[in-house]
């Protein structure tokens, strides 16, 4: 049974919200809305990243629903992101099917494609205040994903799986199938820089004791880019899209950007403790004391590491359960 769930440090269930059969929840955490702590999550059909998406929910500290967020302009939230901003807006991801002419890159003239869209929604009104369609800004040739054998099969060429705020308020967008993170101006939609992929703004380097993957990338098939300040970012590095990996294990990388000389350096990484490879999902959260809390996505483990990389906490989900993301956050429900 799926559902958002709060668990104690000893592994015991504190709160669980079971869903109906054939429903899925994702991205469950605490966030601040209108100055108050809330529980938030996405709920919808059992396929994350699907065109037919679901709804995002906001519950107060009495476990009462106070708001819900849906996609606008005919799109629906696909479950991969539900981030409330300091402006009380929500950043979500949606998807749509379009037709693209790929003849310039050797593909069909009428290839069905999945275009990924970021929307910022005013939570109180439901109005779309910002929209960014990857196809309007990134060429299809930047995809690392081969197109399908049939033009009628939608090609998921970009696949946005996260949209976060950089320290300056602009957007960080993760494109799993471009192996790249895009920094996007939140007002104009213009791309400010690209980290990784075929047209990286930065030369990629491995710092002492670190390794790039087999493709020379710092990350691939990644999720959850997080700005941690001073031009440093953490990224959950799946390193596999379903087949054999570009590394034999997944990891979380810390990247230092030098904007002056356009160099990105892999300065730190923590490997999946069991040496496993997550073929999808995953996230990494820097906690308030500087630890790194990791949900290993398709690999059913969650971990916490000290700033020096020491494994402090490790847990396994029972059976075949996995979690899209995992967070460790303070939560003080009303009494």
């Amino acid at each position, binding site marked *: *049974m*799926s*559902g*958002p*769930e*709060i*668990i*104690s*440090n*000893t*592994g*015991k*269930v*504190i*709160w*669980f*919200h*079971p*869903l*109906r059969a054939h429903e*899925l*929840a*994702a*991205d*469950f*955490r605490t966030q601040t809305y209108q100055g108050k702590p809330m529980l938030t*999550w996405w*709920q919808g059909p*059992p396929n994350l990243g699907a065109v037919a998406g679901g709804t995002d*929910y906001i519950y107060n500290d*009495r*476990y009462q629903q106070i708001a*819900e967020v849906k996609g606008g302009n005919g799109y629906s939230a696909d479950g991969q992101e539900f981030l409330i901003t300091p402006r009380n807006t929500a950043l979500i991801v949606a998807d749509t099917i379009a037709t693209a002419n790929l003849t310039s890159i050797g593909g069909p003239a009428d290839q069905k494609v999945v275009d990924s869209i970021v929307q910022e929604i005013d939570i109180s009104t439901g109005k779309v205040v910002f929209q960014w369609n990857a196809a309007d800004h990134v060429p299809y040739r930047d995809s690392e994903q081969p197109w399908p054998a049939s033009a009628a099969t939608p090609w998921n060429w970009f696949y946005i799986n996260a949209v976060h705020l950089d320290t300056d308020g602009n957007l960080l967008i993760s494109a799993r199938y471009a192996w790249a993170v895009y920094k996007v101006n939140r007002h104009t939609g213009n791309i400010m820089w690209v980290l990784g992929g075929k047209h990286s703004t930065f030369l990629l380097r491995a710092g002492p004791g670190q390794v790039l993957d087999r493709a020379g990338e710092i990350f691939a098939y990644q999720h959850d880019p997080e700005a941690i300040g001073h031009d440093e970012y953490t990224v959950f590095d799946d390193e596999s899209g379903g087949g054999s990996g570009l590394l034999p294990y997944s990891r979380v990388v810390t990247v230092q950007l030098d904007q002056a000389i356009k160099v990105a350096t892999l300065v730190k990484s923590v490997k999946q403790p069991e040496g496993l490879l997550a073929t999808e999902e995953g996230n990494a959260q820097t906690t*308030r004391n500087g*630890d790194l*809390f990791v*949900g290993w996505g*398709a690999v059913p483990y*969650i971990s*916490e590491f000290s700033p020096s990389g020491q494994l*402090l*906490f*490790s*847990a*396994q*989900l*029972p*059976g*075949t*359960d*996995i*979690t*899209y*993301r*995992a*967070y*460790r*956050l*303070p*939560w003080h429900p009303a009494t």
Partner: protein
Amino acid sequence: MGDNAVSCRAAGSRRGRAPRAVAAATTAAVIALTGTACSTVRSGAPTRAKAPAVIVLKQGADNGNGDIFITRAGGA
């Protein structure tokens, strides 16, 4: 929310009281809270909703960073 879903909290958790939202948000009634599971009645058809705990392999991070938030789902 899923209208026939009932939120519940494990008995004996350090959170203390049951959430007031349970009764208000659904027509179901929480009939039991035992261990790490919660039981619910929905539309006259009793359904047991069990939320298993995670298996802690290494425990050394009780450092005030808070509780753990996940969305369990059956994996491949």
